[in-house]
């Protein structure tokens, strides 16, 4: 029975009921993305007919013009987006894993108070503080600098919660051994860090996606057209003129989806495992 099921999936008689629900929903979810990919080759008239899926011709002209930077400096925008998302995600993983370790493993005064402060950043997102944040960023001279986008993103309360849970999984005995050997807490953190590989990767991934998708903070902090992230550039292209080829917009959107998708696909299994570990606790 077991062997058979491994070879052929569920036996033909037992058509799982879930399919009846998941196939239509999956179709509705996936259709726009398939359509988007195929729309790279279409002209405007075809694009405004969302029911027709297949393009009549395979024209790569709009894609070429997009990559050549006809509407915005494509490669620079892509590079800036990637650098900013990667930098922010690395920074957030570093900062929050250190603080998470302290919250999970060390006892100190004001721990509860500091934890509460971290929770506040989760509950009161920086998007709501955007006006004073912009004011402050201007004041300290980070306006128009990528650091002005990256630093606010690194103060992530979600990361603190994640890593506090993650470090609680690690048995105290390891820490005690490290301390008996004479390691400081700082050193112990670095010794324990490799045990959390999956968690580091997972949170890095989550934060990368959040940073890559962020719209408001780059919009107000960065300097208009000269510095744009990919989502910003795409949003400003939309509706710019009627003769603008929407195929290029679709191509740009497709490119904007590639990095989060690839990273997610690469770390899907680890992400799952880390997540169920965190939930288990």
């Amino acid at each position, binding site marked *: 029975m077991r062997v058979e*099921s491994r070879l052929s*999936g569920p036996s033909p008689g037992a058509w799982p009921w*879930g*399919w009846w*629900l*998941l196939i239509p*929903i999956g179709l*509705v*979810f996936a259709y*726009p993305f398939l*359509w988007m990919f195929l*729309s790279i080759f279409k002209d405007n008239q075809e*694009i*405004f007919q*969302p*029911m027709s899926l297949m393009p009549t011709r395979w024209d790569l002209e709009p894609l070429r013009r997009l990559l050549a930077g006809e509407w915005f400096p494509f490669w620079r925008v892509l590079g800036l987006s990637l650098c900013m998302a990667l930098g922010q995600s690395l920074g957030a993983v570093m*900062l929050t894993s*250190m*603080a998470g370790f302290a919250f999970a493993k*060390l006892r*100190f005064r004001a721990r509860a108070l500091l934890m509460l402060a*971290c929770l*506040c*950043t989760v*509950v*009161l997102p*920086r*998007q*709501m*503080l*955007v*006006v*004073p944040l912009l*004011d*402050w960023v201007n004041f300290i001279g980070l306006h128009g600098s990528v650091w002005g986008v990256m*630093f*606010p993103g*690194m103060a992530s309360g979600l990361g*603190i919660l994640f890593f506090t849970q993650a470090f609680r999984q690690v048995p105290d005995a390891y820490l005690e051994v490290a*301390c008996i050997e004479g390691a*400081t*807490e*700082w050193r112990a953190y670095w010794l324990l860090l490799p045990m959390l590989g999956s968690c580091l990767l997972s949170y890095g991934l989550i934060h990368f996606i959040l940073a890559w*998708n962020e*719209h*408001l903070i780059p919009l107000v902090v960065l300097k208009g057209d000269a510095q744009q992230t*990919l*989502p*910003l550039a*795409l*949003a400003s292209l939309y*509706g710019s003129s009627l003769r603008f080829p929407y195929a290029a917009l679709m191509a740009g*959107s497709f490119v*904007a*989806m590639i990095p*989060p998708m690839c990273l997610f696909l690469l770390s*899907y299994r680890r992400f799952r495992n880390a*997540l169920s570990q965190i*939930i*288990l606790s």
Partner: protein
Amino acid sequence: MKQLRYRSLIGLLGPFFLCFVLFWLVPLIGGVRLSFYANTLVGEGSFVGFDHYRALLDDARYFKAIRNTSIYALGSLLCILPLSLVLAHALQSLASRWRSVIQFVLLVPGLTPPAVLALLFLLVFHGRAGLLNQWFVMPLGGQPINWLKDPDVILAALVLQCIWRWLGFITFFVHSGMQAIPSMYYEALQIESRHAWHRFWWVTLPGLRHVLLFCLIYLIVDAFALFSGAYVLLGGSGGTADAGLMLVSYLYQSALTFGRFGSAAAMGIAIAPCLLGILGLMAWFGRKYSQQTGGSKA
């Protein structure tokens, strides 16, 4: 445990809290300060005390924005959480290989930048020829709806977009949570009852309470931080008759279109205690409930 070395404690906590103070706490305090000063584009305005807050009380658009955001949050919660429970059970019934494929398909909208998602929503779903009309409204005998111009349905369109975006992720969390429930609970219940509904009500749902609470808070916060979707969809305004005016869109509009920084800061600061209070209460209730059930189990 031996004496904690404060130097390493500062080393561990310092960088994060430096960032936290500089880019969260200072803007928060700065926002409170800003909200007491007159609206000026450059330089210092004069001190106006609580004038901005008093003006907010008469500002119908502000209340409209809060109302819209709350409806959006509630609507998406009420659709996404039950649907994700159903979908997680549906996923559970599949073979594991297909399960991860379907799960990934559901996750794709959540991985996509919301600006792109809004563009796709504009092109594929809305409009007379859009999928929503062609697949759902017209086969059921309805008139084609203009999703983004009709003030009665703009919020519904935003909620639909939210469902499209987050349903996969929430289902993913719920499903992971379901797999983490120890099977011995189910076996214990098998002795009492073989009813599938009892299994769901007495084991699955209590087992998922942490996950559901997290999803609940996450969705509410996300609703209050919603910007990109509404911005791209409605062109930075509130749409027809402000039917789609969201809180952050309104903040953005007041500050960066009209240059009323002081009022905009007051708007953000005025809603903050409400949001903190609601979510704090929620977390507190969740904790109390889980302590009670935990106590009765032990």
